[in-house]
């Protein structure tokens, strides 16, 4: 079996990354998982978090994603994320913006609790929590962004 597989990180606007890798650690909605060559074909949804990619030399690169899904099969991992950034690119500003989106979405859902149901509200609250955790994890302040009322 080959020791590497193809990893693609694709946003709706363009392909961000396309490299051969040895393993990919993904923040799945139901828990983290690591995909290596020969992994069973799986489609998994992601929560906001850090994706770690390890290349053939063993160098790890990290990306932050705000959710999306990944398509894993034996030879490749394709990650479709609405937003994806290399970890180094995430400044407080970028993060604030991401946080703002999540807050706004949550507020919107909460306002329509009647029509969408509690489950959706809980899901968006969890999303917001995950975003919060993501910021803390990479050492940024999650409390800086505020949504104008």
């Amino acid at each position, binding site marked *: 079996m080959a020791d590497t597989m193809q990893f693609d990180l*694709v*946003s*709706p606007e363009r392909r961000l990354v396309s490299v051969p890798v040895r393993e990919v650690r993904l923040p799945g*909605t139901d828990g983290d998982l690591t995909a290596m060559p020969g992994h069973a074909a799986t*489609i998994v*949804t992601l929560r906001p978090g850090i994706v770690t990619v390890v290349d053939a030399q063993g160098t790890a690169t990290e990306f932050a994603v705000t959710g999306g899904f990944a398509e894993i*099969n034996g030879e490749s991992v*394709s990650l479709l994320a*609405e937003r994806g950034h290399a970890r180094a690119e995430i400044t407080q500003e970028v993060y604030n913006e991401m946080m703002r989106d999540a807050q706004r979405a949550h507020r919107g859902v909460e306002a329509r609790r009647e029509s969408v149901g509690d489950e959706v509200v809980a899901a968006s609250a969890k999303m917001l929590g995950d975003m919060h955790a993501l910021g803390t994890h990479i050492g940024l302040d999650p409390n800086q962004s505020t949504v104008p009322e």
Partner: protein
Amino acid sequence: MPSLKALKNRIGSVKNTRKITKAMQMVAAAKLRRAQDAAEAARPYAERMSAVMAGLTAAAAGSEGAPRLLAGTGEDRRHLLVVLTSERGLAGGFNSSIVKLARQHAEELLGQGKQVAIMTVGKKAREQLRRDMGQFFVHHVDLSEVKRIGYENARDIAREILERFDGGDFDVATLFYSRFESVISQVPTARQIIPAVVEEGQGGDSASALYDYEPGEEAILSELLPRSITTQVFASLLENAASEQGARMTAMDNATRNAGEMIDRLTTQFNRSRQAAITTELIEIIAGAEAL
């Protein structure tokens, strides 16, 4: 016969027009390249998305309890037409052909006694539909401030559509936009987005059987359906942007050529009149000299 002065002015003004149309054509050509690149760059995401969706929907479409975005509301009475056009004119038949298709569609639906609601994106659709379809307008999205179509624009439009769907405003949603075939050919297209159309024979059975889904198939499906709609809106916006520039480029090329022809014709006419004037003067002089 217009005077020499008038002809000269006219030639000058047509020359100015030609300069403008030429400039617009070149601008459109440059923008077209960018729009095409953007459409190209967005393709991997859309392709993956539709491949995964094809697998999922093929499996879920028949089953009970499929999400409403896929199965529909069980009715086919109220239709939402989302008409995507540009903010600016001078793009040949680009806007009118989209509007024409949408109007045909709306009239057909109305003829069948169905309800129609229209959501317009871009100023031109609104202007052209206002007179006869104005009473059906429910929402308008203004993109005139947007320089480059981004995913956020698509997300806003999709959110608006989804909120209305969740609110029970309509049963079927259809997008109207122009598919970019080539610089000289853009095809106005209607694409139904709600309920989602199951694409047949696109790796449907092979893909769905192979994959494990985590969380379950249905959870993924209900998460992906709204995203897939956003992606489709985004793809349509990008196609539309490329089509608009393509159409404008062709239209301006024609306009430039027309102006050129007109200048030639007017110049010939100008020269003839000038020659006629000279000849008349000569005849007068010679006749005068002979009379002496």
